[in-house]
């Protein structure tokens, strides 16, 4: 059984990532009532496996000894590309 510290008195491991995006504005016709832009982005460029959550669960070793094991969960992809088209009017 765990003895918990006060709420917010502990921190998970550092979370950091780099997201990059390139925006190409649509020049279009000057008299057009709307204009748009293409956005090419990459999420988590250097592919860090940040912790999504950490679980502590009972694990049995041998016949009777019982230990807690920490398991971390992270998103499966290293980086994630995206393409967006925004338009304004």
């Amino acid at each position, binding site marked *: *059984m*765990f*003895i*918990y*510290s006060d*709420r917010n008195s*502990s921190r998970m491991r550092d979370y950091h990532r780099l997201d990059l995006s390139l925006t190409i504005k649509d020049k279009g016709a000057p008299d057009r009532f709307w204009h748009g832009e293409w956005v090419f982005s990459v999420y988590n460029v250097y592919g860090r*496996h940040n912790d*999504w*959550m*950490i679980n*502590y*669960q*009972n694990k049995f070793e041998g016949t009777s*000894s019982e*230990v*807690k*094991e*920490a*398991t*971390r*969960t*992270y*998103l*499966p*992809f290293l980086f994630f590309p995206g393409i967006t088209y925004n338009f304004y009017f």
Partner: protein
Amino acid sequence: MNTMKKIKNKLKLALYIIPAIFITACEEPIEDKLDSTYTRLVVDGTITTDTMAHKVLLKYSNDALNRNPIRFVSGAVVTISDGTNTFNLHENPKVPGEYLTDSNVYGVAGNTYTLNISNVDVDDNGVKETYTASSYLPYMSRIDTITVTDYIHNDKLRGWLINLYGQDRGGRNYYLTKAIRNDTLVTDSLKEYGAAANSGFEGEKYEGFAVYFLEKDDTTDIVRENDRITLELNCITKDYYDFVIGFQKEYFPKNPIFSGPSANVTTNISPKEKAVGFFAAYSVVRKSTIYKKRNKKYD
């Protein structure tokens, strides 16, 4: 037409696979180092209406994820008092940290028992500390008999129910249920106790009320023809009931979406910031029956 069908099938497959990739995360065991905290005294003590050597177990708390062996508290001075009589507990020479009363001691319903632990230095600062806890010993309801019936909910959930016949003594009562098969205590730890309040049964008769479920998939629970099944019923205080329920909630896995945040289990040991565990006084009654296969109860 055939090509279109193939493309449609591939698109359909992609529609299943792509979301599956995104909602599925990876897991791996890690060596996580949690912050340490100060050492607490861990108390597991009871006095019951049984005439026996009652036990108080004293341990030091350990770091989480620490695989070092548990350290027991030796050399403590432990007493249990009912206000008139004081029972001295002696450390079991074979089991360090286990303190026992004489074997002729029994608790009396209606009394309040106080546990006193002294001559311990849990925080290792050179100053001896004293810990105390009190518990009322509740009266027991009348239990007439029990039956054991087969229970089949479906192919996966099947086993045996222990059914209770008796009379609740009225008012709000809290019970622990423990099962014994032949001479083996099946419910041999706190996580396996059944705990319940008498909600809806205040002062009522129990007429075959199912109080414990022995699961067929659990090898220790398997009941065979002519096994002697004993139900031990303990009448406990609300504080101890809250402790047992709190412990079981913390012990078993939680669903993060539907469970509340983890919390420390309550204790009745003072000072509360230096100790965990519980000292419980409760009344005990046991009823036995021989299991015969003819009894069946279906959901």
